[in-house]
């Protein structure tokens, strides 16, 4: 569950002060596929980056599963981030590593002593020697990567490099990478904006499937209404740094209050 309370983000630039987000209040429940839609420059990117503290709010707070993460120290924040996956418009894969190495990255950066094995009791793991632990982590990582490759349907591309893949395939690898640490939240920053409509549909289908099977909470920011229509159960409309509407997706579509929403709905025709 994600709670955003009175979040404001301003940039101070010598003489001018720009307000990018103004007193945002949002509540996203477990299992939601929550869409945040707005025109370019409305503040959506900044908002989603505040959710995992890639951007620090100027005031207000962000709460994930009851914990206020806004002012955490580096170490704790790093731990929290392992529970939040993120995918981007530009995919942001490591171009010099294979698909499997990319997917395993999130697990690779977890220290051996901090690792939590899935197929073993944690106490049993803790009692192992360093080398034994390392082996367990290696085996589990391999298993997890295979499992994810199957989910994203790219098993034959495990040893390929991202430059050999299409945009849609790269985004799928990015999704697998984001899910490797079993996060409870997946943030999607314009994840389909660089893809054609058919590929967009297949990515959204994949996200919906993952949400249904693992109950991971998904937050999607986009400027395309059809993306929201396709899979979101709730939506918030953001315009010029403020949330102007929010509610269940069907409600907002049917009974939209503002001009902006109307334009956004009409825009995708």
């Amino acid at each position, binding site marked *: 569950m994600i709670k955003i309370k009175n979040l404001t983000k301003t940039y101070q630039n010598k003489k001018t002060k720009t307000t990018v987000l103004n007193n945002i209040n949002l509540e996203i429940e477990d299992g939601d596929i929550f869409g945040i839609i707005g025109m370019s420059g409305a503040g959506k990117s900044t908002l989603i980056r505040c959710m995992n503290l890639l951007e620090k709010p100027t005031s207000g707070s962000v709460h994930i599963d009851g914990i206020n993460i806004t002012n955490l120290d580096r170490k704790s924040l*790093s731990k929290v*981030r392992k529970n939040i996956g*993120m995918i*981007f418009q530009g995919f*942001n894969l490591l*171009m010099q*590593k294979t698909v499997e190495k990319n997917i395993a990255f999130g697990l690779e950066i977890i220290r051996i002593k901090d690792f939590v094995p899935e197929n073993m009791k944690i106490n049993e793991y803790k009692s192992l020697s360093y080398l034994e632990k390392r082996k367990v982590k290696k085996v589990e990582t391999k298993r997890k990567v295979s499992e994810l490759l199957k989910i994203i349907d790219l098993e034959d591309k495990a040893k390929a*490099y991202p430059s050999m893949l299409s945009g849609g395939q790269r985004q799928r690898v990015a999704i697998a990478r984001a899910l490797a*640490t079993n996060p409870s939240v997946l943030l999607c920053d314009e994840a389909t904006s660089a893809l054609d409509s058919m590929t967009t549909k297949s990515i959204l289908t994949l996200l919906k499937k993952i949400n249904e099977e693992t109950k991971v909470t998904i937050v999607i920011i986009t400027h395309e209404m059809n993306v929201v229509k396709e899979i979101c159960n709730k939506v918030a409309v953001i315009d010029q740094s403020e949330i102007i509407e929010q509610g269940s997706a069907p409600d907002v579509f049917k009974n939209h209050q503002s001009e902006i929403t109307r334009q956004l709905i009409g825009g995708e025709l």
Partner: protein
Amino acid sequence: MDNFMKLINGLSNTLNDIMTNYSDMLVQGMLDTLYMTLVATIIAYLFGLPIGILAEVTSKDGIHPMPVINKVLGFIINVGRSIPFIILLVAIMPFTRMVIGTTIGPKAATVPLIIGAIPFIARLVENSLKELDKGVIEAARSMGASDMQIVFKVMLVEALPSIILGVSLSSITLVGYTAMAGTVGGRGLGDIAIRYGYYRYQPDVMIITIILLVILVQIIQSIGQLISKKIDKKNT
């Protein structure tokens, strides 16, 4: 035109001469140049690589901005790059004597070579890291990677092809520097070129050493490009 013809004639006539009389000297010269270039490049990178990484990490767009440290580093690098190498050679002599015990010979020459190369290499490394796609670094941060992990598992990995081209460039620059080091007792091909070509008016020997230097630089350039291209998985 007349002088040029004389030069060509001289060359072809004494080629045999050179082969028998000077081959030992030329081989030694080549080995000295290679030794100085190799040793200086490796050790200079040992210092220049971390400095370059630090300069980028502490920069305004870096992963851990530290404006004071960044300014200091920038200043040191700029000052280092402003000193003409031939002046550095002479100015460093007391230090060289302290470290090696002498200022003569290829080993002693590596000291000013290393000191002169470090700022240059730091800049090259910094630039290689600066041109990286910031999105990948952001993705790593979003996964909870620490600064160290980002440097070693993301930045250096993604910038490796560019860094290798930098190694190629700096070693070629160092080849040029070794020639200057030759003027203060360094030996090597450049020294031979100056001694025979300038001081002894034997242009034939000078031309041979120039040809050897050109070949050496070409080889370094080609190897650098080959390796960089081979390991680069982004542009297959």
